[in-house]
C-alpha cells in the first residue's frame, strides 16, 4: 500500500485502479447493454437526436428470446460443457501423472522431455489443425463431439503437465519420503499425500484447461459442421452473422450467456486458484 498523504493515495492508487477497471470491464458492460437494447436503438446512427450509446431506457428481452428459441443455443451450450468437461478431465488426469513422473522420478532425459512437452504446446493450432483434420477424417470422427474431445488434449495435456510439474516441484520431497518410511508405497504416497497436497494446483490447471477448451475456436470451426453439433463460440459467430448482417443483440446475448459458466467456475474456485498459482505449500 502507498504511504503518505491522501492525494498520493488517489493519484498513485485509486485513479489508476479506476482507469484500469474501466478498461477491463467496459467490454462486458457493452456486451450486457447491447443484449438488452432494442434493435431500433442498435441500428440508429450515433449522432441522432436523444441518443445515448451507453444506456437504454427501453430494455428488451427480444434478443434473448431469439437466441434461445430461434437458434440452437441450448444445444451449443450443452456441447461446449460436455466437450470442455471431458477433455479437461482427460488432460488433468494425464497432466497430474506426467507432471509427477517428470518432477519426481529420476529417469534419463526427464528434464529435456519436460522441455519437449512444453515446446509441443507452442506449436500454433493454426498449423496443427491441417494434419489433425486429416486424422479426424480417417477415423470418421468429423462432426461429433469426440473430434474435439480427442484433439483438445493435444494442447491441454502439455499445458497441464507443465503446470503440475512446477507445482509438484514445490511440494517438499520430505513429505513423500516420510510417507514411504511410514509404510506407504510410492503409489500410495502419491495418492494419499502428494495429490491431496497438490489440489490447489490441480484445480488451477483444471480451470485453465476448462477455459481454454470452452473458448477454443479453430478446431471447433474446422471439425464441426452441422449446427446442432457446434460449440458456443462457433455457433454464435456462424449462425448469428449471416453474410454481412450482424445480429448484434443476439450475438452479444450469446456471448454473455457463454461467458457466465466460466465466470462462475473462476469465482467458485478463486481461493484455491490463487494459492495454486502462488504455489504455497506450508507444512
Amino acid at each position, binding site marked *: 500500500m502507498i504511504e503518505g498523504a491522501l492525494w498520493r493515495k488517489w493519484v498513485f492508487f485509486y485513479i489508476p485502479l479506476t482507469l484500469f477497471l474501466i478498461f477491463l470491464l467496459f467490454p462486458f458492460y457493452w456486451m450486457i447493454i447491447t443484449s438488452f437494447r432494442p434493435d431500433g436503438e442498435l441500428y440508429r446512427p450515433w449522432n441522432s437526436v436523444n441518443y445515448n450509446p451507453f444506456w437504454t431506457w427501453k430494455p428488451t428481452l427480444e434478443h434473448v428470446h431469439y437466441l434461445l428459441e430461434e437458434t440452437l443455443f441450448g444445444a451449443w451450450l450443452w456441447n461446449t460443457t460436455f466437450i470442455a468437461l471431458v477433455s479437461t478431465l482427460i488432460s488433468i488426469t494425464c497432466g497430474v501423472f506426467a507432471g509427477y513422473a517428470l518432477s519426481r522420478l529420476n529417469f534419463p532425459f526427464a528434464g529435456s522431455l519436460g522441455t519437449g512437452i512444453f515446446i509441443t504446446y507452442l506449436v500454433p493450432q493454426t498449423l496443427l489443425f491441417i494434419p489433425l483434420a486429416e486424422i479426424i477424417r480417417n477415423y470418421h470422427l468429423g462432426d461429433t463431439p469426440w473430434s474435439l474431445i480427442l484433439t483438445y488434449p493435444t494442447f491441454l495435456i502439455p499445458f497441464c503437465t507443465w503446470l503440475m510439474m512446477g507445482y509438484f516441484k514445490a511440494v*517438499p520431497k*520430505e*513429505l513423500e*519420503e*516420510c*510417507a*514411504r*518410511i*511410514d*509404510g*506407504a*508405497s510410492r503409489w*500410495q504416497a502419491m495418492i*494419499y*499425500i502428494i495429490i*491431496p*497436497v497438490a*489440489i490447489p494446483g490441480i484445480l488451477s490447471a483444471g480451470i485453465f484447461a476448462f477455459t481454454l477448451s470452452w473458448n477454443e475456436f479453430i478446431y471447433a470451426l474446422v471439425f464441426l459442421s452441422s449446427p446442432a453439433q457446434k460449440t458456443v463460440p462457433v455457433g454464435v459467430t456462424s449462425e448469428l452473422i449471416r453474410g454481412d448482417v450482424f445480429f448484434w443483440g443476439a450475438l452479444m446475448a450469446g456471448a454473455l450467456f457463454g461467458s457466465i459458466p466460466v465466470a462462475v467456475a473462476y469465482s467458485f474456485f478463486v481461493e484455491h486458484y490463487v494459492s495454486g498459482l502462488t504455489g504455497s*505449500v*506450508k*507444512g
Partner: protein
Amino acid sequence: MSQVVIRNANKKYGDVHAVKDVNLQIRDKEFMVFVGPSGCGKTTTLRMVAGLEAITSGDILIGDKVVNDLPPMDRDIAMVFQNYALYPHMSVYDNMAFGLKMRKFEKAEIKRRVDRAAAILDIGQLLARKPRQLSGGQRQRVALGRAIVRDPKVFLFDEPLSNLDAKLRVQMRVELKKLHERLGTTAIYVTHDQVEAMTLGDRVVVMKDGWVQQVGEPLDLYNKPANKFVAGFIGSPAMNFANVTVTEANGSVVAENKGLKIKLPDEVAQRVRAHSSRDITLGIRPEDLTVAGPSDSPDLTFDAAVEVLEQLGSEIIVDTRVGDAMIVASVEPTTKVKLHDTLRLAMRPSRLHVFDQKTEAAI
C-alpha cells in the same frame, strides 16, 4: 535386538564420493549422533540407513538383517525431518495415525497408540488441529509423535531442531533426551551443532568429507581428539592451534614459534620425542588457558596482546595476538583486563594437545 551395523558403506553420486568406507556399529538402545560440517556425508549416511538413498557398496544391517535392498517401509524405522514434513492436509491425529493405517492396524489400537504418544508429548489438546495452526515447537512434537506411535526398531533424526529458535531448541533437546531414556529405542541423530552432539549422544561420530574422523563418547572426543579437525570441531569457543618447531635443549623439549616459546611438560615431551617430525601443531582449549599467577611455571606461560573482549557474564572471552597467531582464552569474569593490555597467559600442562603438522593426526 535392534542394533544398526554399517559395514564398508560407500555412496557415490557420479564422480562425487559422498560417503567413504563407513564402518559403524550402533548398539541396541544407543543414542548415536553424527556430527560434522555441511557436506560431510552425515545426512547421506542417515538416508542410506533409512533406505532413501541406495548404497553404492557395502552393507547395512538393522537388527541382524541385511537391509540393503529393502524399501524404507519394510525397514521398521521412523524418521524425523528437519522441516518436520507433516502432511499439511491432515489433522495432527491423522498425521500420527497415517503410518499405522498404512500398516493396517485396527482402529481401536491406532487410537490407543496415538493417545499414548500424545500424552507422552503433551499434545493431546492439539489432535484436531491442522499443522499450519501449530507453532514450530508444536510441529516438532507432532513429528516426534508420528515417529513414536509406530514403536519402530530405530529412530532416525535429521537435524530435527535446526528450525527452532535458540531457546526452544535447548528445551526440546532436554525433552529428546528424556524421551530416549523413557523409550530406550536405538536412535541415530544427525546434526551440525556440536553442542547438540555432546549433550545428546551416548556416542558421537565426527565426519568430514565423507570420512569418519572419530567415534567415541562425548568426553573422549573432547579430551582425546584423534586429529586436529575433531579437536577444532568439538568445543566452543574452538581450540587454539599454533604451529611450532620443537628442539631438544638441556634434556627438555622446547616448542617455539614467532611469539611463543614453551617447554613441553614431560609426558607430552616423551610423545613428541618418539614422533618423527619436528614440525608439530600445539592445541589448547580457551578454557584451559588462565591468567598466569606467581605459582605458574614460566615454562608454560606466554605474553598475549588483548585485541577483543567479549563479556559473557559467566566468563570473559579474550581474543589475543601471540606472534602471528590469534589465541582465544576464556578467563574468570572477575579478571581485570582491558583492551590493548598485554596479558600473561598460562596453560594447564595436562590439557596440552599435540598434532602432526602434515597429517594433522594427534601425537
